């Protein structure tokens, strides 16, 4: 069964290479089909992995492949899956499948479909690999694999009216995240040099025992600092709004849905278990920045006049909760962090799909161009937007609720060594952010969906949600509801992981 994990990486890679190797004409004609089939098979593999995964032992790493790759470098091809990585693998496979399914009908502006599909499959290799890797250097390899394809996705198929802008956004994205990941690598190497291994299972089992406090602090600063660019944590978020806003729909969905998760996954998978003392030392700073991000994201959203940019900025706030959960260094907070991350992937993925669909229909995603009254002219699309917005603001019963609740519970009772009054202060700020979040999301719904339709009559063609879009988005809607009413589905998987961590 260990072959499953290797296949989950190998299949999209083979799809990418195969697509690139096809003759141009054949490749062009079959690219979307190949993409859907490969992504579909990969999703099936992810589901199969979830099926054979022993839920009773979700704290343990299962289906392990462990091959020496370059012993002289300390590098191993070490893959595995546990309760923490499994949901992220499924999320990544699902979102890529949705994106490629969407691409069959809704072609990105800029043509060159074969290259587009091949790059999305390469992105999938990096994303799934990141979630399956249990060797620090291997993790780094997959972490870097997404950079070049994402640059192309943003710069070539992004905002059609702003060629220099989208190239600049893509370049800002890649340079920021490369600097972040290089700093993260330095942290990995510090850990490896002192502990003598890059094996994440072994390092997590040691729980930092072989690393003196000073080394842990430096390593944690480098690892958390590097990952914080990817997450992104305020004030390292400046690459994000443009990258999300200029990217094509599929690019935004994958950026927000999965790429940001690679950062937050790194925090809970690597930083917390491997250098716990170091993270505890900087936890107050991380928590502080996280709540600033929550409030900043909400305020920035209030000031936006463009739907895509608004969704982009909302990520800064939501990821603030993800990081706040980590900073509490408690099982509740970490569970919250993971859950909020997954929920954000689904909800913001859906929101970007909707924003893209709205933009395609109106030729703009600016509020001025959208006017009001979408309920009148596109009732289903407006209803979905309202649904996603309400999920995003954390309505109980939908997926957005549990993660932020758990993060807040964690903040209320942070780890023993942390300064509780300080964290209570953070809690107050976070709650203010929560209120502001509800405010801007409801304001958006009111502005875009309600009121009188003054725009519709002027638009040449307007169609509501197509059957194809329904099929593409349905899994996201279903999962948002499912995780909302049955959070245990994920939490029972994730929670046992923390028992082995020296919190």
């Amino acid at each position, binding site marked *: 069964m260990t072959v499953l994990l290797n296949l989950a990486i190998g299949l999209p890679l083979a799809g990418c290479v195969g697509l690139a190797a096809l003759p141009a004409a054949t490749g062009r004609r079959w690219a979307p089909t190949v993409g859907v089939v490969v992504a579909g098979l990969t999703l099936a593999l992810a589901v199969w992995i979830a099926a054979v995964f022993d839920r009773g032992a979700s704290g343990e790493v299962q289906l392990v492949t462990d091959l020496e790759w370059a012993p*002289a470098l300390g590098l191993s091809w070490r893959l595995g899956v546990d309760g923490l990585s499994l949901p992220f693998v499924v999320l990544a496979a699902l979102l890529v499948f949705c994106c490629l399914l969407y691409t069959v009908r809704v072609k990105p502006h800029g043509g060159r479909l074969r290259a587009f599909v091949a790059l999305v499959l*390469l992105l999938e290799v990096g994303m799934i690999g990141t979630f399956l890797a249990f060797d620090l250097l291997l993790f780094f390899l997959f972490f870097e694999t997404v950079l070049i394809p994402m640059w192309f996705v943003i710069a070539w198929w992004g905002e059609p009216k702003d060629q220099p802008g989208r190239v600049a956004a893509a370049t800002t994205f890649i340079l920021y995240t*490369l600097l972040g990941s290089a700093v993260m690598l330095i942290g990995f190497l510090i850990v490896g040099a002192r502990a003598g291994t890059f094996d994440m299972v072994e390092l997590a089992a040691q729980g930092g025992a072989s690393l003196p406090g000073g080394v842990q602090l430096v390593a944690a600063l480098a690892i958390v600092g590097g990952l914080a660019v990817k997450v992104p944590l305020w004030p390292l978020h400046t690459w994000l709004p443009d990258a999300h806003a200029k990217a094509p729909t599929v690019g935004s969905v994958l950026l927000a849905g999965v790429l940001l998760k690679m950062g937050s996954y790194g925090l809970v998978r690597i930083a917390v278990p491997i250098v716990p003392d170091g993270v505890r030392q900087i936890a107050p700073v991380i928590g502080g920045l996280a709540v600033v991000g929550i409030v900043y994201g909400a305020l920035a959203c209030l000031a936006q006049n463009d739907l895509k940019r608004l969704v982009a900025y909302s990520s800064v706030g939501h990821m603030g909760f993800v990081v706040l959960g980590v900073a509490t260094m408690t099982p509740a907070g970490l569970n919250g962090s993971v859950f909020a991350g997954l929920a954000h992937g689904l909800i913001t993925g859906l929101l970007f799909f909707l924003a893209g669909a709205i933009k395609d229909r109106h030729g703009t995603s600016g509020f001025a161009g959208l006017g009001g009254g979408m309920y009148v002219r596109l009732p289903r699309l407006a209803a979905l937007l309202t649904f996603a917005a309400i999920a995003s603001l954390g309505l109980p019963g939908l997926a957005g609720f549990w993660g932020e609740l758990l993060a807040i519970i964690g903040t209320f009772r942070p780890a023993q060594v942390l300064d509780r009054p300080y964290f209570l202060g953070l809690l107050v700020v976070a709650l203010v952010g929560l209120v502001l979040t509800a405010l801007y999301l409801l304001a958006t719904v009111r502005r875009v969906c309600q009121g009188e339709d003054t725009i519709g009559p002027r638009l040449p063609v307007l169609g509501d949600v197509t059957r194809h879009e329904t099929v593409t988005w349905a899994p996201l809607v279903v999962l948002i509801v499912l995780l909302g009413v049955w959070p245990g589905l994920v939490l029972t998987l994730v929670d046992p992981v923390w028992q082995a961590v020296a919190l």
Partner: protein
Amino acid sequence: MIRAAQTVDWMAVAPAAAVAATALAVLIADLWLPSRRSGVLTAIGTVGVVAALIFVGLLWGDRRATFCVGAADAAFTSCSYIVNQLTLVFQGVVLVGTLVVLLLAHTDTAAPESRLPGGETGFLVLASATGALVLAAGRDLATIVVALEVVSLPAFALVGLRRRDRRDAEAALTFFIVSVVSVAVMIYGVSLVYGATGALHLDRIAVALGDPDTRTGLAAAGAVLTLVGLAFKIGAVPFHFWVPDTYSGAPVFVAAYLSVVSKAAGLVGLVVVVTHGFAAYSDAWAPVVAALAVATMTFGNVAALRQRTAIRLLAWSSIAQAGYMLVPLGAVAAGGPTGQLGAAQSATIAYLCIYAAVNLGAFGVLAVVYQRYPGATLEEFRGLVHREPASAVVLGFSLLALAGLPPGVAGLWAKIVVLDAAVSSGAGWLAVAVAINTVIGLIYYLRWTVLMFSAVPDRRAVLSYDVPPLSGIAIGLATAGGIAFSVLPQIVFGLAEASSGIVGG
């Protein structure tokens, strides 16, 4: 101390001797052959280099020494020419690099309108490579200086070889002057070291310098000055002035030779001198090397950002890459753990091997392009993938490997190994400098890669050319190396590690 003629271990010197003999064979064959038969010359050269590679393979695992002194009393035998894993890895890089360059050169010399004489070209490349092979084995300062000159002198001629070309002549002159000055400084350094220690053999110097009672500023100054000539050879800032002009003035295969074979020669000299001879004075040279590394990376990368022509961009890129190679040696801390020098050495070697493969791939494509479009600007590469997909893919892979990002995975391993060397020696600031430089480097490597894959309104305007079969083989060889190092990094790291356990040997 006049003795009977020394016995020479011919097997030990076989790789260098084979290449030297081939150089002469090419020169003589050229006299007897009709002028348009440069294929035969290339064939002779190729056979000679492959034979030398076979010798290297046969010697692998051996440790041989020849040209020794002090054999009579046997108390302290020092040898000028030592063959061990370190020597052989560098000789392998030099030989493969020379092979690729010879194949690339064929395209230039065989072209009907060529102004390059085939015989001289082959002879000069092989003669220079002989120097590089000897340099890899040289373990005394006199041998190293002479070998360095043997590398350089034919290279001056190669740069200025194109008949009736003023830019060539200018480039050759710049190259010559900077080289002469830096070698003069190096010889001055060697003389100081000799004055302080009374020895030229690196092992004897190491013993003399290792005695803490005799520590002198004179020896330290000598050690640092000795590095100057070698820093020139690898194109480290501030001894880099010659690189951009020389690369852009010379035929592209010569630039490829300078950026890989000649740079490898300089690097092996530097590695051997500091780890075998001046190990005890690491507190004197390591900061200097670290400063050179940072200056070289940063200056090379920043200058590369502004380049408009492909060859000048690669020239500045190869300066920046030399900076990364120096990082492990610069990170060596005074009084650091034993084995640190060996680790630094193996990191440098690993980086060089990967760099050599992907850089030759990039220069190979450029050589083919420049054959048809001399001096092509980056902008002219726009849309290359639509007309010449193989070239675009190879060049893109090579550039991203130089940048150190997947899909150029080999380059990622190279960056990791250099960062690891810096981090494990505790030189965090060097690691941060490398990280920042990786980001700067990505800007120009990515920009060029993207241009090649961009859409173009009119495909007929895109560069188009025939890839000559030998050039294709050369590029294929280099790229195969780059892919192999990506997929099986243990090849290069295993080699590097095997060659590092013999410091002082």
